[in-house]
């Protein structure tokens, strides 16, 4: 009737919201390529415990029903399903007739599979239905939920239509009520079956239904309306969960507290570590009876065979206290807050003054105002002053002295101070492990390796003054009044440093030499101070020798007296004996030359004034170091001499940075390019002056031949030695007005003694001391942190073997991270502390677990020696397996215990529960002490019971094909939940 020439239109203009919704679901299913999805085989083949341990993935998209937005998510176990290839499709089409009847859809197989009951960690739907791939629809509208029955039916209908239209075999669920309720209903359509998923959740358990017998009756009733249908074989899996969460029966006094108590001894260099609270909140034991036939066990209200000792499978899991208080974290974290305190020392100490007026402190303030005046040194602070302290403060001299002694006086037994923490009494195990001393040695080696790695950090060497300073200051912060204690000790320390500087005492316990840029900034600064002190000592020594006869001895002696041997170190300044020889000679009447000279030029020295008169006149030379090869001066043909030069000044990294910044700033402007050269020419200029002094009558070309030989072309001679072409300076050196020529013209002949000092020790020393005393608290904390972090890491590394299995790689990574971080200008200490906290928690958890599981068996005296020996042997092997368990528990969400109750580990766990039960009973009846409890009382009542019942049965009528049916029941204290999946044959009903 229709004209075939007319195009056929399909009209969707009047499609309802419902139809649109179904269409969008179908589109989604097609888009995700789900209609052709098949399993890759039985779950047991994918991997054991696949549902709990495999890799789950998900994919989501939003759909809307009218204005109601929802999120569709596909959860699937990676690798458990695949898209059917076209070959398979073709093949299946052929075999369809036979296959159709034979195999159940894979999701239905999963319902019946008992290989994946009770996964350790899985989505609740996976746990309840044992499925591997499913879709879930959840409202995506804030608090809006699907809670009415008509909404539910509407959605379920839509889903069902969509599934059937696309021929998608995946179960599709609808999230009901609030997500926390974990209630969902769903449907699966495959091969003419419809499987409906439904749930019941009650607050109270109906009487009798918390037992296997009760549930079996319920299941059978649902299937065939007759609980007397005894030929229906039901497969059962059962799991009971027992929990310990009250640890009060443990004597907690074995965990020491690092209290900030006033009377506690101040422990330097030993940072506190470990958990301050019980880090484990729950210890759970799950015992299960997998795959039982229904009639094997009896579990009714009257009697139950289901006790842990009989269970073939044991599993343990633990829950942790989140963010437990840990000493090290607290110790470091508290100090980390100082990093953000920008108050100046004056302000802090000022507020302290207003607190309690203290003449001594007022003095400090005065001195702060004029840094030239020295803050009282150690000797002065030792002097007793009037008592005024009520609280513990650094103003208490005795404590202050303790701190100052620790910082400034290196003690011999410093190395041994850091001993093992011994937080938890672990003695019995270590003796049990005695036979495994090789292992111990290995551990010690590992710890050594870590310490070696820590040494490479940009901090300071262990037990150097910087190290001790950092630890003393953080200790002062914690035990002696927070920032006030910190500030006060800092002031005292800087005062002491100034004392060293002014008196010319080298600061000990730090490597000599120029600032080592591989160390932390404070280390460099102290080294720099030492450089200043050394340079000045050397200078003063020279001066005093120069005026040996005139100068009163006492000043010199003073300078000489207390100088430690390091001061002789030749690395710094105008150095070593040859210098001193030279300088000494220069003020005697004749210039006797240094080693290797031919003494031909011993003419009397002229006064400096004479130099400027005649530049080219042959003058007496000064400041010669050694002849420069066989080179002769161009104009005078005299031997060319290498002059004694000033060493460039030592610099700390912040000084270098400052200089680099200055160059950066100038170099960006081409006009200033000359300026940067000028800035850096001080050393060149000094060398030119020295060269002129050592080589009277020289010219720039001579200087260049020594200083930059590549800028000089040697004269070309013919065979007879006649100069064919004169030697010449490179083109760039001869450009008129270039920097080298400028400088050369300005340079006067002057030996280093009469030059401006390149390294002004007084100025640099004062600069550092001034900087230290005017720092803000945050700056101080920044200087101290590197060593503190290293000390903390060291502390953790000592216990690295007590941690979880991946502790060692974790620490390796952390140290690497720290290494990087400390090289930054502003290291992220917060992040480092957080990572250290993680390590600390890991160790604390492991230790706590050991403490719980390694309870010594009470020796039974009646035992014979043989028995006792056997018991000892058993204990040894159990120690190893229990240690395994501890490490497993830290690694995995759930640990299976091989051998269940009868294994060594099983006994240890039984013991643990028994002790807890005893403690509980002791509260009421005191008679049960040290008696073994009967098996039925060893464990508390289970906090959770889970039952899975499943069977195959034809529904809805006897002529239908058999489908899979399953009920999952969980009974906890305040929840009774049934999750059922029942199949109906839609073809033969």
């Amino acid at each position: 009737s229709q004209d075939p020439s007319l195009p056929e239109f399909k009209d969707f203009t009047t499609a309802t919201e419902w139809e649109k919704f179904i269409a969008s679901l179908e589109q989604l299913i097609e888009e995700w390529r789900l209609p052709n999805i098949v399993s890759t085989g039985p779950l047991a083949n994918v991997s054991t415990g696949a549902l709990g341990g495999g890799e789950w993935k998900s994919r989501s998209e939003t759909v809307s029903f009218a204005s109601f937005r929802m999120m569709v998510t596909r959860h699937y176990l990676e690798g458990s399903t695949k898209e059917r290839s076209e070959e398979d499709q073709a093949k299946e089409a052929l075999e369809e007739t036979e296959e159709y009847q034979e195999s159940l859809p894979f999701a239905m197989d999963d319902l019946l599979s008992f290989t994946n009951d009770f996964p350790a960690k899985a989505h609740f739907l996976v746990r309840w239905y044992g499925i591997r791939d499913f879709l879930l629809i959840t409202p995506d509208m804030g608090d809006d939920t699907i809670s009415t029955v008509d909404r539910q039916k509407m959605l379920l209908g839509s889903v069902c239509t969509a599934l059937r239209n696309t021929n998608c075999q995946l179960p599709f669920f609808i999230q009901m009520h609030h997500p926390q309720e974990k209630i969902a209903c769903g449907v699966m359509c495959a091969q003419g079956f419809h499987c409906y998923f439904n749930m019941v959740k009650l607050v109270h358990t109906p009487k009798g239904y918390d037992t296997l017998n009760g549930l079996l009756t319920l299941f059978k009733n649902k299937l065939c309306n007759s609980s007397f249908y005894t030929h229906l074989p039901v497969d059962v899996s059962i799991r009971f969960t027992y929990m310990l969460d009250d640890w009060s029966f443990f004597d907690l006094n074995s965990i020491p507290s690092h209290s900030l108590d006033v009377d506690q001894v101040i422990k330097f260099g030993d940072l506190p570590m470990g958990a301050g609270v019980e880090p484990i909140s729950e210890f759970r034991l799950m015992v299960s009876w997998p795959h039982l036939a229904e009639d094997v066990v009896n579990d009714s209200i009257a009697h139950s065979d289901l006790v842990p000792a009989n269970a073939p499978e044991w599993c343990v899991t633990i829950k942790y206290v989140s963010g437990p208080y840990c000493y090290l974290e607290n110790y470091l974290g508290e100090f980390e807050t100082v990093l953000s305190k920008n108050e100046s020392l004056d302000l802090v100490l000022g507020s302290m003054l207003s607190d309690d007026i203290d003449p001594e402190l007022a003095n400090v303030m005065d001195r702060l105002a004029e840094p030239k005046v020295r803050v009282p040194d150690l000797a002065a602070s030792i002097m007793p002053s009037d008592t005024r302290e009520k609280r513990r403060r650094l103003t208490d001299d005795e404590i202050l002295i303790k701190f100052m002694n620790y910082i400034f006086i290196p003690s011999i037994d410093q190395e041994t101070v850091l001993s093992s923490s011994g937080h938890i009494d672990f003695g019995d195990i270590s003796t049990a492990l005695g036979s495994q001393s090789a292992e111990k040695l290995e551990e010690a080696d590992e710890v050594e390796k870590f310490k070696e790695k820590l040494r490479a950090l940009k901090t300071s060497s262990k037990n150097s003054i910087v190290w001790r300073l950092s630890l003393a200051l953080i200790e002062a912060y914690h035990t002696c009044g927070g920032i006030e204690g910190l500030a006060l000790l800092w002031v005292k320390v800087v005062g002491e440093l100034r004392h060293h500087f002014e008196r010319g005492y080298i600061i000990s316990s730090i490597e000599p030499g120029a600032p080592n840029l591989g160390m932390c900034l404070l280390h460099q600064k102290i080294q720099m101070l030492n450089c200043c002190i050394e340079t000045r000592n050397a200078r003063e020594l020279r001066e005093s020798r120069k005026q040996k006869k005139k100068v009163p001895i006492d000043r010199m002696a003073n300078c000489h007296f207390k100088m430690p041997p390091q001061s002789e170190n030749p690395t710094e300044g105008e150095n070593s004996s040859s210098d001193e020889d030279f300088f000494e000679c220069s003020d005697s009447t004749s210039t006797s030359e240094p080693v290797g000279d031919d003494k031909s030029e011993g003419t009397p020295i002229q006064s400096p004034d004479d130099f400027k008169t005649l530049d080219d006149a042959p003058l007496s030379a000064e400041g010669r170091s050694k002849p420069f090869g066989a080179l002769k001066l161009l104009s005078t043909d005299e031997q060319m001499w290498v002059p004694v030069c000033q060493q460039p000044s030592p610099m700390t990294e912040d000084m270098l940075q400052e200089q680099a910044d200055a160059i950066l700033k100038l170099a960006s402007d081409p006009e200033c390019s000359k300026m940067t050269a000028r800035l850096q020419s001080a050393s060149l200029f000094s060398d030119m002056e020295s060269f002129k002094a050592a080589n009277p009558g020289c010219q720039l070309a001579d200087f260049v031949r020594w200083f930059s030989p590549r800028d000089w072309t040697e004269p070309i001679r013919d065979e007879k030695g006649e100069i064919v072409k004169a030697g010449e300076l490179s083109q760039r050196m001869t450009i008129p007005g270039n920097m080298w020529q400028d400088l050369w013209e300005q340079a006067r002949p002057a030996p280093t003694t009469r030059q401006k000092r390149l390294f002004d020790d007084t100025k640099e020393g004062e600069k550092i001391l001034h900087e230290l005393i005017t720092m803000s608290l945050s700056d101080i904390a920044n200087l101290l942190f590197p060593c503190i972090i290293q000390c903390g890491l060291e502390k953790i590394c000592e216990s690295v073997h007590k941690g979880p299995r991946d502790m060692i790689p974790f620490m390796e990574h952390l140290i690497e991270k720290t290494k990087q971080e400390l090289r930054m200008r502003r290291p992220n200490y917060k992040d480092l502390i957080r990572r250290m906290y993680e390590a600390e928690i890991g160790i604390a958890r492991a230790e706590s677990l050991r403490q719980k599981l390694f309870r010594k068996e009470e020796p039974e005296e009646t035992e014979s020696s043989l028995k006792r020996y056997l018991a000892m042997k058993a204990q040894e092997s159990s120690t190893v397996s229990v240690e395994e368990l501890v490490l497993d528990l830290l690694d995995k969400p759930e640990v299976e215990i091989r051998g269940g109750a009868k294994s060594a580990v099983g006994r240890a766990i039984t013991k643990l529960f028994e002790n807890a039960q005893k403690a509980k009973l002791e509260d009421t009846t005191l008679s049960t002490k040290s008696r073994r409890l009967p098996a039925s009382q060893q464990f508390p009542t289970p906090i959770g019971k889970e039952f899975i019942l499943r069977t195959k049965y034809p529904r809805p009528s006897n002529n239908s094909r058999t489908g899979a049916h399953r009920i999952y029941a969980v009974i906890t204290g305040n929840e009774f939940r049934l999750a059922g999946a029942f199949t109906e044959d839609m073809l033969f009903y």
Partner: protein
Amino acid sequence: MEEAITTLKVLIIGEADVGKSCLLLRFVEDTFDTQLTSTIGFDHKSKVITVFDNKVKLSLWDTAGSERFRTLTASYYRGAQGAVLVYDVTCRESFEKLDSWLIELETYATHKNIVKMLVGNKVDKHEQRQVTKQEGISYARRHQMLFVEASARTSENVTGCFEELVAKILHTPGLWTKKNDRENITLTDAPDNLGDGSVCGYC
């Protein structure tokens, strides 16, 4: 303009008068100046270049080649990710001194895996050549360096040399970090790939 993903510090070292400053000038400003004086101490230039579609800021430190400046310059090696070692193909001595520069680098550079590029400069002076290309290549191979011959005068290979160096640095793990790049490895908190977080069936 998008921001540079990172700043790389590159040193230019080598004997005096091999053309370090000229190379740098050619690269940064694309000019050649015969009137350049011998560098005193240090000079600095910077340039943003694009490598692998990423903008990278180069902080280029030109050093003085003269012996007496060495103690001063060594301190600037800190934190450098790359080093350009320059020699003059017309001067054998500058090639033979490369060893001492490598030792210098090893001593003062903070990154142990610093990327090194060997550049034979002044290849435009064909008739004065004293070091063959093959020698340069085998030296670079012995010391695991990149190698190129270039001329600051004719600008041959100059830009390519720096780009290659940067590409290599970017490919070297651990040598540089992206701005705000922080990795996350946790010890105690196992990843939970079920958004729902239902770890346990009940409670």
